């Protein structure tokens, strides 16, 4: 069984978000990049499936050479092979089209993406990819078992979970729950050494044009000072929420 895990390389969750060049691009100086947390849950699941399903795990990123450190980390975690499609990740559409082109050349039974990236937050790539390839698709996935060519999975929906099954191929949008945080694999020395020997292929991009463009970034307006209410004057709080904020 062949599994592809799509990896997005994102600013660490504690990063300060600033913009440069007249607010048209993200200021990466001093920012530490990590594997998108949702993808990391999916990658761990895929690595487990190497044993349970005799799976082969490939990780893939669309991006420039700066993402290779993240891909090496994925190899150290346990992926067998890494691929970088060599072009900037311009928007969800062009990223999904580049991944689609690769998937048409190499057959994957299971494609695992994150539910959403924590930088762009679109939650778009997995669904787009499933639509483009006409694969089955589940997102917000919190449980997954594959037996032969059949997958059984759960997704979180509003107010509950839903359990479904389908035939492979399947695109999964993974999140916490698929594996737990305590399950995440921290690369050890051996993993890191082995990762150096594993293939990291760079393949040429198709050069797909994006369909969306970030024209300008902005930050939320600075909050006006908090209005404090004394603990023994809660009537005032209720009054403010009722008549000033009009939210109760």
């Amino acid at each position, binding site marked *: 069984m062949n599994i592809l895990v799509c990896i997005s390389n994102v600013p660490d969750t504690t990063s300060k978000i600033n913009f440069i060049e007249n607010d048209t691009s993200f200021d990466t100086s001093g920012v530490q990049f990590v594997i998108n947390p949702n993808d990391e849950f999916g990658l761990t699941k895929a690595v487990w499936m190497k044993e349970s399903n005799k799976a082969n795990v490939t990780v893939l990123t669309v991006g420039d050479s700066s993402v290779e450190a993240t891909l090496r980390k994925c190899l150290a975690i346990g992926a067998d092979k890494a691929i970088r499609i060599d072009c900037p990740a311009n928007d969800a559409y062009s990223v999904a089209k580049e991944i689609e082109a690769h998937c048409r050349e190499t057959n994957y039974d299971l494609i695992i993406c994150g539910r959403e990236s924590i930088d762009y937050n679109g939650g778009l790539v997995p669904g787009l990819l*499933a639509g483009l390839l*006409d694969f*089955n698709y589940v997102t917000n996935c919190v449980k997954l078992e594959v037996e032969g060519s059949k997958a059984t999975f759960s997704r979180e929906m509003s107010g*509950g979970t839903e*359990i479904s099954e389908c035939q492979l191929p399947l695109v999964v949008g993974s999140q*916490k729950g698929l594996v737990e945080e305590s399950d995440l694999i921290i690369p050890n020395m051996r993993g890191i050494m082995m990762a150096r020997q594993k293939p990291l292929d760079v393949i040429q991009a198709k050069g797909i044009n994006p369909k969306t463009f*970030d024209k300008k970034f902005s930050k939320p307006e600075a909050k006006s000072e908090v209005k404090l209410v004394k603990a023994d004057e809660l009537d005032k709080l209720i009054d403010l929420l009722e008549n000033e904020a009009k939210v109760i």
Partner: protein
Amino acid sequence: MAVLVYIESENNQFKKSSYEALSYGKAIANNVGEAVCGVVINCSNTESLNAFGADKIININSSDLTDFSSKKYAYAIAEVMKSENANIIILSSSPDSKYLGSFLSGITDASFVSNVVELPESTNPFIVKRTCFTNKAFSSTELTSEIKIISITSNSFGIIENPNNPKTETIDIKVIDSNQKILSMEKETGSVTIADAEIVVSAGRGLKGPENWKMIESLAETLGAATACSKPVSDMGWRPHSEHVVQTGKPVSSNLYIAIGISGAIQHLAGINSSKVKVVINNDPEAPFFKAADYGVVGDAFEVIPSLIEKLKAR
């Protein structure tokens, strides 16, 4: 050309986010001078939609669409997009709508922008404002393709009444086959879910232990609110994971977010930034949350909350 709004329903009932999507669709349609068409699936009673300005309501009626399926629903909506010659598609941000939306953009080769918070800054070029970097920033994003799909963040635009008398039409569509089928569903009953909630009451490690959540639930019940918690609280198993909000959990975009005994770590704030009004109750006046809140009470939760419940009930 038309603006098409997918109006999600459950058991013949619409959610507030569906009315919001339709209100938004109507406003865009006015801007671009097009008609607005609402599409519902297996929903016979659409009268309550008349208040929100649709020119036409299409009900796709098919026993193959009884259960939600992102794939079947997306293909069905794609048919209506074609027949109505729709170039702008509006969705809510509910989990199901986002689930089918990205798939829909894949099969229609359309551009899709999610988490939109306002009416377009301009419609030619077509530029919308969306949140990004887990709500720490906004992007003004231009959509250049012929067909444009956008999903709007709940509670960002609001519901705007615009009474109209839409033409209603029931159609049957040939639904695509899919080998994906639902085996079972587990619904949390009774409580309000975080995603749909107008008000969220959230508590953190300051509550000391799971046994103290009674008062949080009671406050939530008094306000008709959903309950939520900070990450360590769910990690320690005090509360179920489904309640854990924010950065890598579920972003909250309620009208009112009440944080009790939560310090206000950057990762927590990221997930609740898009909530409109924030109230913090914390006994440490230096807690970072006070910098991010609109209203605050410096006090012991174990005294403030029971008293607040009492006063709210007495209202």
